[in-house]
């Protein structure tokens, strides 16, 4: 494996991407998107509650990365639509500026950490005036009745509801791109041609759909399938081409590490 996704310090999609690009000096070209996706899914699964915000954020990034990658994997696309080309540059600049912002505050956090470490070696005196002066201090309990005290306790002890979205019905996601590739390898040879919509019909989770989509892209990259989309945002047709011979037998070895 050329690099390791360190999920133990996982702090969000920007962090992971930053880590991949800067610390490990990995070229996007060499990053298997699927491995990043699987890293995230493993992380999402570990989370106590499903964080939809983070999942969405991650998907946006993944989508941009997929697009950037496909651009470079398929240089022939260069003479495509100028609007699309510009939109892609815009996406890239947005991602870049967010990564830079993320890095800025990571470094600022490190500076705050150093300051607090330094400050934590020095302990403040908090003793206050000794008893000789206590009688001078105003009586803070003047005018406070036992009933007022009880009311204050009731106010303090009444749980304050934390408003959150009810999500009891959301089952934890147990999908990985590797699994999705396996499923596709089982299903596609049997059906031959299928639309992406049909392929994901039974899936309720949006994230599961995305995982399927990434698996489709991976197989496309391997040359195992062909993709066809006649109009923008139109129906995506998946055609099974067969497994390239050098991959058959161990087609998804890459995902198991």
């Amino acid at each position, binding site marked *: 494996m050329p690099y390791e996704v360190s999920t133990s310090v996982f702090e969000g999609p920007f962090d992971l991407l930053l880590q991949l690009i800067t610390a490990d000096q990995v070229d996007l070209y060499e990053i298997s998107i699927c491995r990043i996706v699987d890293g995230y899914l493993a992380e999402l699964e570990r989370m*106590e*509650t*499903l964080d939809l915000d983070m999942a969405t954020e991650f998907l946006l990034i993944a989508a941009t990365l997929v697009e950037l990658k496909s651009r470079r994997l398929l240089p022939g696309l260069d003479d495509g639509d100028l609007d699309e080309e510009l939109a892609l540059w815009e996406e890239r600049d947005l991602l870049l500026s967010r990564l830079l912002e993320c890095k800025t505050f990571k470094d600022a956090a490190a500076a705050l950490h150093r300051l607090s470490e330094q400050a934590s070696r020095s*302990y*403040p*005196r*908090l*003793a*206050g*005036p*000794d008893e*000789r*002066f*206590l009688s*001078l*201090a*105003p*009586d*803070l*309990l*003047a005018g*406070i*009745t*036992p*009933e*007022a*005290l*009880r009311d*204050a*306790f*009731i*106010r*303090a*002890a*009444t*749980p*304050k*509801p*934390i*408003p*959150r*979205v*009810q*999500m*009891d*019905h*959301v*089952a*934890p996601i147990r999908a990985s791109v590797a699994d999705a590739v396996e499923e596709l390898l089982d299903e596609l040879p049997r059906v031959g041609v299928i639309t992406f919509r049909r392929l994901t019909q039974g899936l309720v989770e949006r994230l599961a759909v995305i995982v399927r989509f990434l698996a489709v892209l991976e197989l496309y990259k391997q040359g195992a399938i062909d993709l066809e989309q006649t109009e923008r945002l139109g129906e995506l047709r998946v055609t099974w081409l067969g497994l390239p011979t050098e991959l058959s037998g161990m087609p998804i070895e890459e995902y198991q590490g």
Partner: protein
Amino acid sequence: MNGDRTTRQALEALVMVADGPVPPHLLAELLEISAEAVEALAAELQAGYEAEERGFVLTRVAGGYRFQTHPDVDAYVERFVLEGQSARLSAAALETLAIVCYKQPVSRAQVAAIRGVNVDGVIRTLHQRGYIDAVARDPGPGQASLYGTTALFLEKLGIDSLDDLPSVAEFIPGPEVVEALEHGLRVTEG
């Protein structure tokens, strides 16, 4: 000698940070010197502060050593205590006091958990004013101080004992209500 200097500095630091008198045997233990050496060092410091005409003195009171302000500047300290402090309990401070009162003995962390905010400053003020005091130590790790109300508190409130406080039982939702609330409002793992 270097070792002596550090020991002297550590003694000053320990007494400075303590919020009450520090017993000589505890200082001896922490500084890894004899109780006699502690007393000799303290005497040296006392003489030094006096020679330098410091505004504080190192005194030996019943419980041990502590820093006190120099009697010569009492007038300033009195003015500070009179003017520098608020004359009323804030609503937040009253809630904190109420929790200590009804839940005693209770640790600072427990009070903070109920109030949902940091209560260190309020607890310190209530303690300094003599309304609450550390009555026990949490037997668990960390041995946090557990606070309770004092005789002064009862006196100021005009009651004879904690039994005279109005009961709160019927006002507080039971655990099953709280649980239902939390279940309905929080994200739970599916």
